[in-house]
């Protein structure tokens, strides 16, 4: 009987090893109620009292061994089946993906959003003002009375004698100061208009971002510090700037801020016309008369203002040489950003 059990075990193990789809049948054949092992065990009654426990133990051992072999095999077969399935499901990952419909923000919006984020982070709110503007706000309140020669540098579109298309975002300074008492800390992005014929670097419509800070004790050193931080955030911590005296009727002292040419690092090249510097923005301390025009006492308060040409920043960032592309809106252009 012992030999019989061992023979069954050997046979079963061999069959299990060779099993393919018939593992369940094998299980029934050996371990089922009508299986071979059960059949053997039924003959246990004929054994002597000494043999019975030995054979019983052996039978249990054989049953356990077969069950374990079956379980192992089942697991192995399952793993193999999964492996085969996965193998069969292989795809060519180099085939291009199925893209959702693509869209995108206009490059100027992207640049404006970036600048706005920088200034929001520095505590500037975003102010707005009309594009069709009164002469008073665009010129007079900014120290540009009628017949002021600086008016000629800003060729103006007029609607009536008193109404024009704003030539700069600076009128928003005046409107903000009229509405709000210091502390004031705002930027005012927007469209501006000058009657320039269209070419690669001129457009009758373009965008500026105006900045204005007014409070007690604001100094020119604050102007420098603020714009330096802004430039480092825009162009990286290693960017270098310089402030050069300039003239704007509504600021005094006035300056232009240049950034060191990123192509030649100040050595002078074609891009910076040999100067080593590229002009980025105009700025200055708000002229006391402008404060006064807006009902703010220049003996108590001071402030600074600046203006950035958005197109210039965007052209420089993306290496765009022709401003017209921004307004042609060819989808092949728009989809690059």
């Amino acid at each position, binding site marked *: 009987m012992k030999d019989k059990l061992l023979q069954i075990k050997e046979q079963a193990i061999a069959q299990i090893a060779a099993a393919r789809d018939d593992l369940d049948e094998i299980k029934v054949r050996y371990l089922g109620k009508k299986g071979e092992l059960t059949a053997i065990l039924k003959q246990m009654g004929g054994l002597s009292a000494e043999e019975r426990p030995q054979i019983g133990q052996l039978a249990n051992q054989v049953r356990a061994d077969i069950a374990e072999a079956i379980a192992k095999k089942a697991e192995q077969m399952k793993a193999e089946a999964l492996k085969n399935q996965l193998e069969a499901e292989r795809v060519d990952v180099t085939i291009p993906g199925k893209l959702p*419909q*693509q*869209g*995108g*923000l*206009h490059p100027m*919006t992207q640049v404006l959003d970036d600048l*706005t984020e920088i200034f*929001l982070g*520095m*505590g500037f*709110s*975003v102010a707005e003002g*009309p594009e*069709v503007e*009164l002469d008073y706000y665009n010129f007079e309140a900014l120290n540009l009375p*009628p*017949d002021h*020669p*600086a008016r*000629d540098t800003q060729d103006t*579109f*007029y*609607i*009536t004698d*008193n109404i024009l298309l704003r030539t700069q975002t600076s009128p928003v300074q005046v409107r903000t100061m009229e509405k709000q008492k210091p*502390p004031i*800390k705002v930027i005012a992005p927007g*469209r501006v208009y000058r009657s320039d014929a269209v070419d690669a670097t001129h457009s*009758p419509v373009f965008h500026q971002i105006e900045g204005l*800070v007014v*409070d007690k*004790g*604001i*100094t*020119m*050193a*604050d102007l*420098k*510090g*603020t714009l*330096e931080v802004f430039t480092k955030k825009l162009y990286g911590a290693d960017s270098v700037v310089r402030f*050069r*005296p*300039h*003239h704007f*009727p509504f600021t*005094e*002292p*006035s300056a232009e801020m240049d950034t060191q040419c990123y192509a030649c690092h100040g050595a002078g090249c074609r891009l910076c016309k*040999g100067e080593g510097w590229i002009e980025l923005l105009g700025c200055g*301390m708000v002229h*006391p008369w402008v404060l006064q025009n807006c009902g703010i006492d220049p003996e108590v308060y*001071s402030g600074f203002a600046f203006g950035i040409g958005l197109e210039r920043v965007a052209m420089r960032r993306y290496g765009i040489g022709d401003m017209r592309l921004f*307004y*042609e*809106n060819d*989808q*092949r252009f*728009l989809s690059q950003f």
Partner: protein
Amino acid sequence: MILSYKWLQDYTEIDAAPRAYAEAMSMSGSKVEGWENLADEIKNVVVGKVLSIEKHPDADKLVVCQVEVGGAEPIQICTGATNLYPGAVVPVALHDSYLPGGVHIKKGKLRGQVSNGMMCSFAELGLTEHDCPDQDADGIMILKDGSYTVGEDIVTALELDDLAVEFEITSNRPDCLSMIGLARESAATFRKPLRLPDPRVEHESGDIGNYLKVDVETENCLRYAAKVVKNVKIGPSPKWMRDRLRVCGIRPISNIVDITNYVLLEYGSPMHAFDYQQVKNGHIIVRQARPGETLETLDGVVRHLDETMMVIADEQGPSVVAGVMGGEKSGIADDTTTIIFESACFAGPSVRRTSKKLGLRTESSSRYEKGLDPETCISALLRACQLVEQLGAGEVVGGVIDCYPAPKAPTVLHLDADYTNRFLGTEIPKEDMVKYLESLEFEVRADDSIVVPSFRADVAHKADVAEEIARLYGYDKIPSTLAQTADEAELTREQKFARTIRQQLVGMGLYEIITYTFISPKYYDNIRLPADSRLRDSVTIRNPLGEDTSVMRTTALPSMLDILSKNYANRNLSCRLFELATVYEKAGDDQLPNEPEHLTLGMYGDCDFYTIKGVCQGLLDGLKVPGCRFIPCADHPTFHPGRCAEIELDGKIVGVIGEVYPEVAASYGIKPRTYIAELDIASLLAGAVETVTYKPLPKFPASTRDLALVCDEEVLVGDITESIQHSAGKLLEKVEFFDIYRGKQLPEGKKSVAFKIVLRSENETLTDKHADDIVAKILKNLAPLGVSLRA
């Protein structure tokens, strides 16, 4: 303004290299745009002497010359020039030499004869006939006057080594449109002393009173000074003067004209020279023009004058538009023997208005309109006469006419060192401030009052003084600090809403465009607006660049169509765009227009009405704007009458959407069916849910019913949907249209519409009966619409 570096040395001593000079001047406020030096372009060109000239053996039009150039042996040069003679002293470009324009000269052979260089004309040296009035334009430049050394570098010999520095002068500093002004800035920048000229005339004869009488009858003439010169000899001016004019970009003409230009450059004060014979009775009248008067100006144009324009006239009529341009006849001619030098100061605004009105901008007008200093008039006048004397161009008549009705007292300000340092954020010692101001010719008195020099009309406030101090101290030395002020900020609800719109639309596959806000009034025809449409009432630009950009748009649809059309013309097969577009709604005549922001959508290719409507609905969902209805609109002129809807929100039309009317698409040259929409952003914002409140997730299962309904073709899905919503009431979680069918299995003119209806209660599981009852109610209420369950 172009500065001659050599000339500058007359007033101060600056020896900085070009770049260092440019940088220092730019940093102290006089922006240098660039510089050039003719000498840098001429290399290895020397003074030579022609020893012999022989005919070229093989060429009729060439000669072979032996030329002494300072070496041991003369060199042979072939030339086609015909003005040479043995002994002629000429410029010789030797082998391996450079001429202006990058011309490189090397030795070679001409028709077999060796030529070791080139003899040069003045043009080849970068000069013009005006610079060399005594030279033959077609021949080799002949160096006369015997003062040249053979072999000497031509740059030294002709004194070509001068740096021309070009400055960009801002409109507040007309004083810097002069050599003296820039010399003052240079001296202050480099901390060098300044030497100003003190012009004097040595010999005068006669009395101006016997020649000239001047009446100033207008207050637009701030000062009018004149001197007379007799026995004038018109001729070329000397080389040194021509050289300086050339470097400063002025064409030398003749001694008297050159003198006026020289003084203009030196003092920044425009001068005029009249032919005395042309001034009737020697009587000059400065007055406003009379209506109807005309004057033929130097450029040959007859100008129609009016009383807003100032003229210099004699008893017969105007001869000069004051400060703008002289008359054809008043100028000096070759036979002029007596001249009047005028040195005047005219009021800037008057000159500016006249120049604008006449459309005539000149060197003189562009200076006057910035506001010149009347105090300079006499020095400039004397300087001109001194030069006349020096050049032997005439005899100066004694006396000067000076009409100066209202000299202005100098501006006096106060030096407040504390204020200045507080304002700038600096700690500049007061002594340094005084030093800076004095170097710019401000007088600082013991009581700290500052007398502003007359040529600095731009300095009128202590902030202006602070700028003078700051720029000479150096902007780069001002520290960098961060203001202790407001440091919190966020976008307004409107600004965030605009950002969300952009993000939503980009997420749905649209590209953002930015367009011009002014359009052609014809664009309203393109979109078929009726003649009486209120949208045609646009804000109109009085001086547009052209008709295409002459009115401010009242709708942004033409801009969108224009960009779609350009994309189509550029062969972009499909296109999906949007714009956040400002439009301009006219208010009263003297009022500013409203500037609402509209949203436009536009697409063609791979899309239909439901694509753009889907984008629109997706956007409204994303913006949390519930309750928009799409109402069929058959009468919008821009749209297909069967494929257009007005968008209604809270009983108000907030937008329009649909397929573009075929003629409109055709006028834009777009062939595929094109879909556009325009919505008012403020109305959407007004309808947007500000704060979303969480609704608990359902605890009980939903009952779902699919309904296939049959109705007439005319019945709108929207109406059926609304009826279902109304009937099902609170238990309706969702009604979803999912199919429409027309075809053989239905009678003609009928359609089948399928909906999925999801019902759910918050408090219990709905029984089938309850759900069935609701469906029954839905069907009952649909019956009047002619809608029934499909059999």
